[in-house]
């Protein structure tokens, strides 16, 4: 069955690593939609993150280069110390503009561009995190007609990001990690 969505974007910060690992471990090797992740990370530690996630994943995990075309069935991770955008025409573009909310990559900026590109065909998910980056981004997904999900704050190691998102917009679903996984599997 053709999904009504074209992409899934996930934002997370402190406390999200384990959740992300569980989610990607649950996805089958033929998962058809692209998963685009913007996670806060240490700016100078370029290597290691992809490798750590790859151990769990049946899908290839890629830190996109600038202007790299986005393909289905892959998991993308915003590279360290760059903002990551989706441009019209489904290419990534990167930028070194100023940090926003102390963050580069900025989850808000990634979500803004994905929402502009995919409109109602986007699923936005915000996970555990210790700042409010991502809240306006998730609102832009809602404003564009896309579907919004936050990890249940009760389950989050640090609920600041999910709470801020819920304050910024009326989210469609508040899900535990298990429910997020079930939802993603049912999407296709």
């Amino acid at each position: 069955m053709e999904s009504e969505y074209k992409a899934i974007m996930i934002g997370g910060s402190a406390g999200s690593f384990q959740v992300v690992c569980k989610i990607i471990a649950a996805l089958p090797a033929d998962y058809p939609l692209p998963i685009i992740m913007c996670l806060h990370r240490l700016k100078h530690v370029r290597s290691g993150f992809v490798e750590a996630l790859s151990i769990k994943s049946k899908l290839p995990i890629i830190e996109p280069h600038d202007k790299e075309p986005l393909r289905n069935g892959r998991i993308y991770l915003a590279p360290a110390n760059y903002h990551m955008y989706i441009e019209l025409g489904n290419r990534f573009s990167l930028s070194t503009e100023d940090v926003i909310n102390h963050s580069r990559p900025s989850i808000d900026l990634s979500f803004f561009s994905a929402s502009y590109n995919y409109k109602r065909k986007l699923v936005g998910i915000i996970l555990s995190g210790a700042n409010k980056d991502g809240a306006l981004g998730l609102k832009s997904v809602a404003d564009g007609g896309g579907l919004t999900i936050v990890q249940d704050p009760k389950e989050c190691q640090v609920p600041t990001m999910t709470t801020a998102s819920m304050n910024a917009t009326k989210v469609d679903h508040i899900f535990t990690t298990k429910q997020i996984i079930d939802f993603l599997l049912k999407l296709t």
Partner: protein
Amino acid sequence: MISNDDIAKVLAAFKTASTYDFSDYCDRSFARRVDKILTDNKISADLFVKQLMSDRDFLEKSVRDITVNTTELFRDPQMWLNLRYQVLPRFKDKPTIKIWHAGCSSGQEIYSMMILLNELGMFDKAQIFATDINTAVIEAAQTGTYKYMFNLNYLDNFDKVMRENPYNFEQKYDVPYEKYFDIDKRKDVIQMNDFLCKKPVFRKHDLVSGCNPFYHQFDLILCRNVIIYFNPKLQNKVINMFANNLSVNGFLILGASESILGSANSSFERMVGFYRKKQTISMF
């Protein structure tokens, strides 16, 4: 967010009132930068266009605001380590080494390069050229003065590249900061030493022109995190220009997450983090 019609008007205003042409910049990032100027100055797109047309200083300032000037001393230490251990030693026995910093911003990359060259005993034979689209950042680069508190990570980067050896953890190089710059904590300033500031040849230059502003072939061209703001067509044009102005076996160094996607790719051999110009048969 600013409308596509307004973006078209802004692009046209730049083209009419100056030689700046942003039409092959990446749409979304250009729109975002212009949007930020409108928000920061609390002006409408129409008023912005009017001011671009009538006020040259305002136009130059807007170019400065549109272009992104993020840089650091030894930004991305791994790149500098590769340069130190893999690339620069290849030029050890050459009489000269010509280096172009394209899109040099406020100069931190140039100073990093000169410090490294000096430690490797290659400073005197190096010729350093640096360009940017933006006169104000070139002036900043020439003075070599940077904030201290805001840039504490410069020292961490310096230590990683200049004092430690990742291939031999027991080896430590004793390179004092004062050899290259003075830190005045009271004035909150890092000041590069005079012998460094005087060396580079600076020139204002817009990569969109697609030409080499110097009468030189280069051994090394650094253009890091500049062409990410260009669309694929302009990226390819610029990379081709670099290929045409690099000596054979010269190196093109892009930002950590940049790569050559278009036809220009055939001129280069990809190495870890670098592109080396291949020997090719001339088509003319």
